[in-house]
């Protein structure tokens, strides 16, 4: 098989995940947060593909990755539409100012 072991994939995936979390938490711009979420999604997709590659002998994991990518695309469309309407409504897309959910 290859010289690249599964740990390498997982480390990259963890790295991607942490970057996504960090981006999500630290960014003030919603688009930035959204980008972070995309990174988390991609890290999980990478995990699917890696585990599928090393444990099973079928392509279920890769299939899920493709699903995730498709869903992420659809999600991006919805998220961008939401952001546009948020911007129209509040005139801003700074996450700190959008605290209507505050109890």
């Amino acid at each position, binding site marked *: 098989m290859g010289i690249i072991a599964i740990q390498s994939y997982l480390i990259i995936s963890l790295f991607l995940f942490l970057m996504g979390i960090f981006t*999500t938490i630290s960014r003030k711009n919603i688009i930035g947060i959204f980008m972070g979420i995309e990174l988390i999604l991609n890290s999980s997709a990478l995990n699917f593909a890696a585990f599928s590659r090393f444990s099973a002998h079928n392509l279920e994991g890769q299939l899920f990755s493709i699903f995730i990518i498709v869903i992420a695309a659809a999600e991006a469309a919805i998220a961008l539409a939401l952001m546009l309407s948020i911007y129209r409504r509040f005139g801003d897309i700074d996450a700190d100012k959008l605290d209507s959910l505050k109890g």
Partner: protein
Amino acid sequence: MSMKTFIEQYGFMILLSPLLGSAITGLAGRRIQKKYGARPIGLIACGSVLVSFIIALAAFAAVAGAREGEKTIICIVFNWLSVGDLRADVSFLFDPLSSVMILIVTGIGFLIHAYSTEYMKGDSGYYRYFSYLNLFIFSMLLLVLGENLLLMFIGWEGVGLCSYLLISFWFSEKANAIAGNKAFIVNRVGDFGFILGILALYSLLKDKIFGGGLVVPVAPSLLSFRFLAENVHLINNIDIFGVSAATVICLCLFVGATGKSAQIPLYVWLPDAMAGPTPVSALIHAATMVTAGIYMIGRLNFLFSMSGTSLNVIATIGAATALFAATVGCVQNDIKKVLAYSTVSQLGYMFLGMGVTAYSSGIFHLVTHAFFKACLFLCAGSIILGMHHEQDIRWMGGLKRYMPKTFLTFMIATLAISGVPPFSGFFSKDEILWQAWKTGHQGLWLVGFMTTGMTSFYMTRLVMVTFYGENRLHLRPSTDDRHDHDDHHRDGVKESPSSVTMPLVILAFFSGVAGFIGVPAALGGGNHFEHFLMPVFGHHAVAHHDPMEYVLMFASVAASLGGIGAGVFLYRIRPELPDIIVSKIKMVHRIVYNKYFVDEIYAFLFVSGTMLMTRVFASFDRYVIDLFVDLTAHVLRFKSYISGAIDRVIVDGLVNGVAESFLFSGSQLRKIQTGRIQAYVMVLLFLVVLGVSLVVILKGEV
């Protein structure tokens, strides 16, 4: 149906009729008066009394027509009380005595009702007046006809109530209201004696009858007059505090009689009672109600005959009142006051007659007095109407010309009361005086004899000052702000209309001739009246002709003629003399004019004491009882404050505390809900890390 069965079955109608009349005029009168005017009210009132009068005539005929020994008709309506030994029926007794009384009450009552329709014309309380008047007739008939002492007592109180209501009829003036109060309160004193007498009689009789363990299937009606007449001898030998029981009871009852019939010492209310409308004075305070005491003694003559002491007291009080009131009557200036004192004086005569056991003579004088005194009062009313409500004889005079009918009737009644033969007063008064002499009360005779002279003197004075001479209305000082139209007054003095003079004429007629029903044997008469009443009063010793009777008769006629002569001389021939005499005996005149200051003495002895007592009681009430009440209130308030505080602090505190704690925790928790996604994510991450770490640590793996 014979007359007797009619009375037995329907005799109660005589009472029902005025009661109904009173109810109608009293309850619906205001509306009737507003809608149809005063006329229907007068008709209802007069009609109801007329019905009573007709039944009274029937009853009289039935009693008079009955055979000897059956002259008592009982009309039993229903059983009223039946409690253990106490039994009383509502039943009415028609016998010679009560039939004479109801004729007087309803007959004169009817005339006065008719008279009042004119006298009270235009008064806003017209319906009220007639309602009271009808109620009075009802009560008086109940008093007279009641077959037992309880019914009589109800009637006794009823007439007192009506008297009070009618004296203070024009209650918007304080003097009238006070006069009404005075009459009521003085009568209460008497009534207290009366009810004490009834209770004493009842309890003593009960002990005697049921004391021996005697069991009777139906308890006898102890206070029924028929029962009393047969059984009263049972209390003959009982002593109360060393005095015979009969004397105690009789004196108690007599106290009631002095109150109702205005005798010393309780006469003071009657002159003040003249504050009421004049027809009321005629009916209640001259002809009927004030004779209730005499009637009561007549009704219970069997009881009074058992106690010589009480008879002597009655005779003495009667004679003293007769003389006393006559002296006061001589100097009064208010026409109604003169007549009021005259009434007191004549009632004294009646008591004198009762006291010397000349019961039928007393009742005879009651009858004749009812006629002539009612006539005099109604004449006074007519004069007052004609004089535009002036009652002071000093401002009258010369009315003979203006009011001929009133003058004539007044004259006849004056002659009757003065005892000039052959007018009615002569026969009845002379009968009493002769009986007093015959039974050995020469001293009382002398008092009565003097009173005769005085009576004719003050009545003549009244006639002379009122009807003769010049009219002095214009001399009246116009301090009286109510009637300040002096000038046109004299022209306004005119004869009253026929509905006023008609009763006067009828009453004057009877004042003239009523005496002939009791012409004594000494004058060749049969003394029918005494014979008629014999079933009630029993037989008198057959009067053997006594030359003394003629002597006394002559003496009293001479006295009354002398009194008239003196009156004419002083007030007609030498009108300046009275003033000279008065100035000679200024002190005496002042005392008599002020009624011997009896009112002031009573005010000092009783009224001020009572007032002081009321003040003491009032302050006791205010400072002691109110203190306790207030204290209790304070304690309660404190207690309720405490319980309120517990409620507020502990109970409410718990409830509010729970609510507060929720509120507080909510407000604290809401701080976590920042609304910032990133914060949530941070928490999420933190918790995930924590959870994973926990799992790892617990499983011991890295």
